């Protein structure tokens, strides 16, 4: 059985390598390299997989999942400037790919249960662009 819960957070970021010139950054990241930053309403869909617990009828307690998503992602990233306020994005470019990988790293250990585990992290940067992370890179 699969179970998906959605969460939203709004954040700003700059996609640029500080070691490069403005021209180099624009060539790789386009408008996302604007040195003053820009923002998105990120939408996160977290999918768990596992067996339904016969005692509770649940794969994973949704209230607990909501609390973990809030603690690990929303409280940390919502209304923040990712490059300046949310490590490791002081060192790593906060592309949507890297933000999704970081969300996976934060959530996966907290969501391990005997009957269930994290299956996929889908992160929408806009309604027209999203990435899926289901483990490693």
């Amino acid at each position, binding site marked *: 059985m699969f179970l998906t819960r959605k969460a939203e957070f709004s954040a700003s970021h700059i*996609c640029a*390598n500080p070691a490069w010139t403005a021209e180099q950054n624009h060539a*790789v*990241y*386009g408008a*996302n390299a604007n040195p003053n930053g820009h923002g998105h309403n990120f939408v996160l869909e977290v999918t768990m997989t596992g067996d339904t617990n016969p005692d509770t009828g649940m794969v994973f307690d949704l209230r607990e999942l909501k609390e973990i998503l809030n603690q690990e992602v929303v409280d940390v990233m919502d209304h923040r400037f990712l490059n300046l306020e949310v490590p490791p994005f002081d060192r*790593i*470019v*906060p*592309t*949507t*790919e*890297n933000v*999704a*990988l970081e969300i996976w790293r934060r959530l996966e250990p907290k969501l391990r249960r005997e009957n269930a585990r994290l299956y996929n992290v889908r992160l929408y940067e806009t*309604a*027209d*662009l*999203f*990435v*899926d*992370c*289901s483990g490693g*890179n």
Partner: protein
Amino acid sequence: MKLTGRYRFVAAHRLDTPTLTPEQNRRLYGKCNNPYGHGHDYIVDITIEGAVDSDGLIASREQMDALVKNAVLQRVDHKNLNVDLAEFHSAVPTTENLATVIRAWLEEAWTLPAKLVAVRISETERNTFIWEAGKV
């Protein structure tokens, strides 16, 4: 990791198979057989899969958008699929066939480091067609 981009185009088409009689075509395709054609606002979701590179990207957005624009959108946007595209002079432009043609165009033009793994087309909100690598 996978990355999905959503693209849009508008086009006209008519579903009609020359090997069938007019009556058989009407019965098979219903309203979609209207001799004057009709149109849709198509939505295409293109999914690629690959490793995140040292720039933090699966693929450059500009490169992906340019590839989809050149290989697909400029061929079909504001076109009559039956008339304007040689691919549909001998095949019916059902959205199944359109998905197959779009996948072939993409593969032919492919320059991204990541692999093309899915093409998903909606002709309306109610009808969606999906090609997925390794599945169908």
